[in-house]
């Protein structure tokens, strides 16, 4: 390994560290959350308006809390409470779901884009 190799390795590692920091501190804050129940009914929630949202699912009521630009599950009638443990969501592109109650939460930024394209 010569000196150029070491410099390349060092720069690569620095790049990775930078990218990891950027990834875990996303700077595009979400503006809206879309809540879907049973894959259908879409509720568009403004994240800058603090509120409590209740959504009906097959098992019962899932409750969301919106606070200062972020949103979280605060109650849901599911056995594992994975949705509640996922915590606050505020970055555009975040996605969380309570699968037993068939409720999903998706955060969107100001620019909307496609999920995927297929040819």
């Amino acid at each position, binding site marked *: 390994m010569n000196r150029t190799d070491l410099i*390349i390795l060092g720069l690569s590692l620095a790049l990775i560290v930078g990218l990891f920091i950027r990834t875990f501190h996303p700077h595009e804050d979400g503006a809206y959350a879309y809540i879907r129940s049973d894959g259908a009914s879409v509720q568009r929630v403004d994240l800058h308006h603090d509120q409590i949202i209740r959504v009906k699912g097959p098992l019962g009521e899932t409750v969301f809390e919106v606070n200062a630009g972020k949103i979280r599950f605060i109650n849901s009638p599911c056995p594992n409470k994975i949705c509640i443990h996922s915590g606050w969501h505020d970055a555009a592109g975040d996605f969380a779901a309570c699968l037993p109650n068939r409720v999903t939460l998706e955060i969107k930024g100001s620019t909307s884009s496609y999920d995927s394209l297929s040819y």
Partner: protein
Amino acid sequence: MTEKATRLIQLTPTRQDVRIAWLAALAISLHILESAVPMPLPGIKPGLANIVTLFTLLRYGLSEAIWVSVIRVLAGSLIIGSFLTPTFFLSLAGMSASIGMLALFYHSPLKPGPIGYSLVAAQAHISGQFLTAYFLFIPHPGMWNLLPFLLSFAIVLGVLNGIITRSLLRRLQ
């Protein structure tokens, strides 16, 4: 029969042509072998075919390395059956980015060793593939969360491939 009618056009391959064919065949074999090995994360591959490209670059020069890479992607995709599918375009994008960066370093006054070249190639390869995947197939902001993980693997596998290339070059000296 006149002499004119029996004359055949003879293409005599040079030593260099034969060498490129052998190296490309080796790269294609590794490429196919890899496509059969299941990997834990999508988008991650050991990139063993890249060892052949690096070896060619360091021993025979840039133009032969370009030939070997281009033949590998074209012929490899024809054999696997992915020619002109999304997989092929990802492969092509990765190869072009990788060989482009190798060419840049090859002509620069910096003189990287096998490990440096391998690192550059691996990261360029995954970045080229990632950008193609992002802009052509999955333009979802969540994709960017995958990039640091992909690049981490690229660094680890890049160093490993570099070490393999280095010992290969030493043994064949």
